[in-house]
């Protein structure tokens, strides 16, 4: 009897589970009304790469969130439909299942809210919900997929569920850093270990970049948007209405950072070395500069070690449901 109970309680069959890379939690959060399941993830994956989700069928989600570029791109700011510049850099959508809010200013509270906004944005994909629904309903393949997945014809909310489900499966981990933290003392070189000590100590990177996903999911003003006495981008304050959030942007994950230049919310820093120089100077002073940002007085050797350490945060990216 007890054995039967244990067997019943066994985990899902291995083939029907996400494979989570080393360094991340096995528990991948998802809302109760959109628990991770194969059908929704696979539908979301198809939608993610489908350019018909943009008005002129030239842009898909993957255009700006390119799997070959750690689900970001190489442009300083995103470029949407008809070559329009969006104003902020395409964030790398890695490990967003653990996100607390979405977009650089945190304007979306859930992934289900987030995934629709680029589609609707006139500078990004510029497709109305009505046109979107019409396109999905006119496609026999989608009709069948939505029917089998959500047991009804395509609806926008189900499209959001499917896209969000897929995004939750984009998981970055299994890096040399993860292996080191898991106990492999040879996973990092002496220089990289020195860089890790700086990362946690003198360089104060862990003030914002901490935890398995190397982000506090918070908003910080580092002065990136402050130039010649004013802010080129107001940042979080537009959403929160708290003046202290002026010029603040969400802390991005550092996973795969070495593979996805340029950096910051506006792509204004070309290399990791530039980023470290920026922080070594104490960011850019302004009335709302985060209290954690101050001159670091790093030596050239320390800066090199930090760059070497950050390179160890690149590893394996998994996406979609395992076949």
């Amino acid at each position, binding site marked *: 009897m007890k054995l039967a109970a244990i067997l019943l*309680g066994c985990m899902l069959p291995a083939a029907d589970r996400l494979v989570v890379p080393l360094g991340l939690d096995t528990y991948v959060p998802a809302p109760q009304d959109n628990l991770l399941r194969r059908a929704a993830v696979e539908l979301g994956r198809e939608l993610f790469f489908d350019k018909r989700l943009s008005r002129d069928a030239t842009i898909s989600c993957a255009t700006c969130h390119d799997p070959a570029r750690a689900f970001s791109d190489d442009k300083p700011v995103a470029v949407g439909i008809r070559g329009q510049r969006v104003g902020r850099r395409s964030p790398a959508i890695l490990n967003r299942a653990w996100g607390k809010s979405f977009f650089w200013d945190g304007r979306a509270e859930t992934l289900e809210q987030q995934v629709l906004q680029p589609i609707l944005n006139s500078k990004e994909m510029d497709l109305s919900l009505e046109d979107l629904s019409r396109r999905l309903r006119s496609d026999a393949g989608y009709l069948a997929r939505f029917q089998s997945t959500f047991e009804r014809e395509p609806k926008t909310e189900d499209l959001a569920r499917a896209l969000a489900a897929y995004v939750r499966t984009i998981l970055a981990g299994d890096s040399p850093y993860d292996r080191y933290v898991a106990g492999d003392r040879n996973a990092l070189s002496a220089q990289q270990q020195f860089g890790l000590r700086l990362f946690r100590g003198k360089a104060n990177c862990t003030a914002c970049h901490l935890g398995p996903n190397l982000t506090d999911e918070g908003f910080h003003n580092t002065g990136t948007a402050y130039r010649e006495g004013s802010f080129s981008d107001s940042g979080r304050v537009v959403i929160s209405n708290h003046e202290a959030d002026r010029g603040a942007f969400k802390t991005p994950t550092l996973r795969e950072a070495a593979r996805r230049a340029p950096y910051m919310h506006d792509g204004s820093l070309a290399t990791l070395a530039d980023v470290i120089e920026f922080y070594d100077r104490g960011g850019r002073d302004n009335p709302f500069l985060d209290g954690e940002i101050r001159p670091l007085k790093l030596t050239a050797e320390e800066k090199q070690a930090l760059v070497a350490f950050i390179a160890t945060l690149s590893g394996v990216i998994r996406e979609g449901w395992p076949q």
Partner: protein
Amino acid sequence: MPSPEGRFLSCMDPDTGDLAIRDLASGKLRRLTSRAPDSKEFAYFSAVSPDSRQIAYAWFNESGFYDLRVASVETGENRVLYRNEESGFVQPSDWTPDGRHILTLFFRKDNISQIALVPAAGGPVRVLKSLPWVYPKKMDISPDGRWIVYDSFAAGSQSQRDIYILAMDGSRESTLIAGPAEDVFPLWTPDGKAVVFSSNRLGTSDIWVVAVEDGKAAGQPRVIKRGLDRFLPMGITSNGTLYFAQRSGARDVFTVSTAGGAPERLSSRFAGANAAPVWSHDGERMAYLTREGAENFGTEARVITIRSFKSGVERQVAPKLAHMEQLRWSPDNQWLLVSGSDGKGRSGIFLASASSDAVRPVVWDQEATFRGIPGDWLDSDRLILGGSQLRERNRTSGEERILDPRPAAAVAVSSSKRIAFISANEVIVLGKGVVHKGEATAIAWAGDELVIGATEGLLISGRKIPLREYDQGSISVHPDGKRIAFSGGRVRNEIWSMKLP
């Protein structure tokens, strides 16, 4: 922790620090490890396997962090199962019903706590969930092996806990008990149909039970035993007997005359919850740490209470820190130097306002534990810091110079700028050398005399003030040199059992 059939308890032998089992019928204690008398190693948390033949336990090793080890109950033979300095604190909590995995809490160097499954035969660890600093006080696996129940801070809170159920395969999680009360220490009943937990929702810490179906609450929780108050549930045996530790007595802030005599307990609204007192430089105020929420038989959420001796008013400030260990007033009595750690994995020393919740880091030390590093003010700009070496630090420039290469477990600066520190079993005064050999846990200056906290008393210029109450925590001397404040009191822990209804 009780063995599943209730034959013995696994525990640490308080006399030797070894892992031991106490036979519940005979009361006899049998050690399963043999720690060398002069070793700094010791056993800590333990969990008994489903067949009662093995015990998983935390072992503080010679390198200064914890291994996860497994010992045979029959032979005492033991092996290291998991050893990783990056996860330097481990707490085995339970075994899966098939005996193949040990549910273990990891506490990482970056102050992340993790709910993990460690294969009992060795192999890769599976981390189920990471939590920022706020580690569960109790985790327990359901008898069918499907669920883990645990407590953790409610969203946005640093003192109130809710209870959660996490699927063993990581597929989902739900909140079992939520609300403004402190709901902690969940345990599954032997039939797996309910979770027993502690809650203070009626004003005292009582035992409650809630029915559970498919990982969710199936009805309202109900109280089953009231008024146990300061208790720590340990485990439930297969016949439904709950074993728990109960604490009596209290720790608090006391003062005693430097001439000796009977100590007096500080009158406080938070009686029994205060520790680490420090007088302001004008002697008009005292700051101390006050526990919030349930006792944890270890670290608890704390706030700073500041008492005015003129008005008798106690007010509190709550700097957003994960742990606070020790306080020191700034020369202008406006700020407090706080040893401890923040929620971002940084242990060291912080500056907290005495009038608001504002706090900012001063310096952190990767070698420090969550208790931070000791420190004191040399003047308004310069600090004396302990830790891996004794240092002077300029707060403004961040420049440091080493005053003594020896580690400093406690530091104290006198009003005439004399610097004392404790290193190993010596008390050293800079420029003078060793002034005391032997056990010392705290130091403070009374003018130019050094007060040393030692076992069951305080030493002043070789004279001992015996204090049964003294708990070896930090001490502070009034600026007039006539009274010493210390945290103390005696607590007694007993283990009880109760048949669940």
